[in-house]
């Protein structure tokens, strides 16, 4: 089924590449980054960079890459063949009636339109790439549109100039205009510059992961106190009072203390799957549902008690807990689903870099886990 969808999508892309292979970039971007959330913008950029760097046509390389990521070798084969097929068909028809083809105003029209479209698509690809190299965030296009329409300007998130990116960009521009270096060698030069500079600057770069404030300033050490800090992400801190009201209770063995009350373990069953996802269910799943979920995924299930945690809430996702989870499970990351006040928040914690991604960031890893959950339900 994945292969069938891939075939249709790449056949469509192939049929749209009137003016050459670069036209596939905006098509891929709209389909896989904006619509399906399969890649983040940076991952998409890296994917295209690798395709540009390796021998072979860029469009073919990208098709193979996306196909492979979607469905290993069969996906790669499907996507690449599907991309080439429309061109093969058109070229074959053109060969068999080339004389009629050459001077018709229909062909001239199609080609002129293809050239216009190719230029527009290439320009758009350049704009996309600026947002992930020279600038620290995508260009504020939507904000500009909003401003022009309603006169209301909203500052974009984290938008600024990425100075190291800008330097390499200018350097590459100079190399391209002043020397006869091939594109591949310019890309490799840039990669080497990046390697050297990051080794040279190692230690000076501040890459503090994003933690809720309450976890950083130590007020949300609720895990060790078997207390929960509900509003960790929205900024409210665990108070001394809430800590004592919690620790003051002694709960039965099959229950744990939370926000001043003893709660049944069955409603708070963390699950660890071998696929690298961790679903902390609250009202989303009962204990038996969770067991079923793990069985279907042929995954291992672990309860919260396995890493000595007796509370819940994103606010308490602190460094100690992250380390503990990684030591216990050797996972690469996990998904955290947390439902409260009638809405469900999702977080993805990456155990390699210790970063917690929030659901509203359109994160791919988190989206994939949500899909798994939906399929099960």
């Amino acid at each position: 089924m994945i292969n069938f969808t891939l075939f249709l999508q790449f056949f469509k892309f192939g049929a749209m590449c009137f003016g050459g292979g670069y036209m596939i970039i905006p098509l891929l971007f709209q389909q896989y980054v904006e619509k399906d959330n399969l890649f983040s913008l940076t991952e998409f950029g890296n994917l295209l960079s690798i395709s540009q760097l390796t021998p072979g046509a860029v469009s073919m390389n990208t098709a193979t890459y996306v196909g492979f990521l979607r469905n290993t070798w069969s996906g790669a084969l499907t996507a690449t063949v599907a991309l080439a097929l429309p061109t093969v068909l058109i070229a074959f028809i053109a060969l068999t009636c080339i004389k009629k083809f050459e001077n018709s105003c229909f062909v001239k029209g199609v080609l002129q339109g293809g050239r216009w479209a190719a230029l527009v698509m290439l320009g758009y690809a350049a704009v996309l790439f600026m947002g992930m190299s020279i600038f620290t965030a995508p260009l504020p296009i939507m904000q500009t549109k909003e401003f022009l329409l309603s006169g209301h300007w909203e500052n974009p998130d984290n938008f600024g100039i990425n100075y190291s990116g800008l330097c390499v960009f200018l350097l590459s521009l100079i190399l391209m205009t002043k020397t006869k270096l091939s594109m591949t060698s310019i890309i490799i030069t840039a990669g080497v510059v990046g390697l050297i500079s990051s080794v040279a600057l190692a230690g000076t770069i501040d890459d503090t992961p994003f933690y809720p404030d309450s976890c950083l300033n130590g007020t949300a050490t609720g895990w060790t106190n078997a207390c929960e800090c509900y509003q960790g992400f929205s900024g409210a801190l665990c108070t001394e009072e809430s800590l004592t009201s919690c620790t003051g209770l002694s709960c039965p063995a099959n229950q744990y203390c939370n926000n001043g009350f003893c709660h049944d373990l069955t409603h708070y069953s963390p699950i660890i799957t071998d696929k690298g996802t961790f679903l902390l269910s609250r009202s989303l799943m009962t204990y038996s549902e969770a067991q079923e979920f793990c069985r279907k995924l042929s995954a291992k299930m672990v309860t919260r008690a396995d890493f000595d945690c007796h509370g819940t809430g994103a606010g308490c996702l602190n460094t100690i807990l992250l380390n503990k989870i990684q030591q216990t499970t050797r996972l690469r990351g996990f998904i955290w689903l947390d439902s409260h006040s009638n809405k469900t928040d999702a977080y993805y914690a990456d155990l390699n870099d210790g970063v917690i991604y929030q659901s509203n960031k359109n994160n791919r890893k988190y989206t994939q886990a949500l899909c798994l959950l939906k399929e099960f339900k």
Partner: protein
Amino acid sequence: MLPVIEEEFSKKRKLLAQKDILDMIAMTQTVPGLIAVNSAVFVGHKLNGLWGMVSAVFGVICPSLFIIMTIAGLFPLLAIKNPVILSSFECIRAAVTAIFIMTTIRLSKKIIHRPLDVFVVIGLFIALLVGINAVYLILTAISIALVVSMKEYCAERKIP
């Protein structure tokens, strides 16, 4: 792509005449699609009919398939979190940005001649930025170009 084909098939192996090469260049420029695939179709068909075409296209697909599958399978580069490699990728993206901008400038010099070109290209570009589906925009570009070329055709032949 085209100079490599000329070198291999015309100069080295003498399989294609100079005229065929010129035909091929004309064809890749008059038939829409991916240039690598177009030329593979032409050379393959010229040398060995339908099967020649199929094997030439297969040959053009193979490098991508093998190289990319090896890279994606053995070195899952996109999943790497190593800061050194990520920073190297950051610089590579900057270089690719420069390449895209230069290619855009070169292409626009080739394509934009008339006021109509400027008008259409800017209009389509804004529409794409605002988030309109690229497929519709490509089809719009082609329809506009078709209408224009039909009009020119009629004007030349004095058809009302």
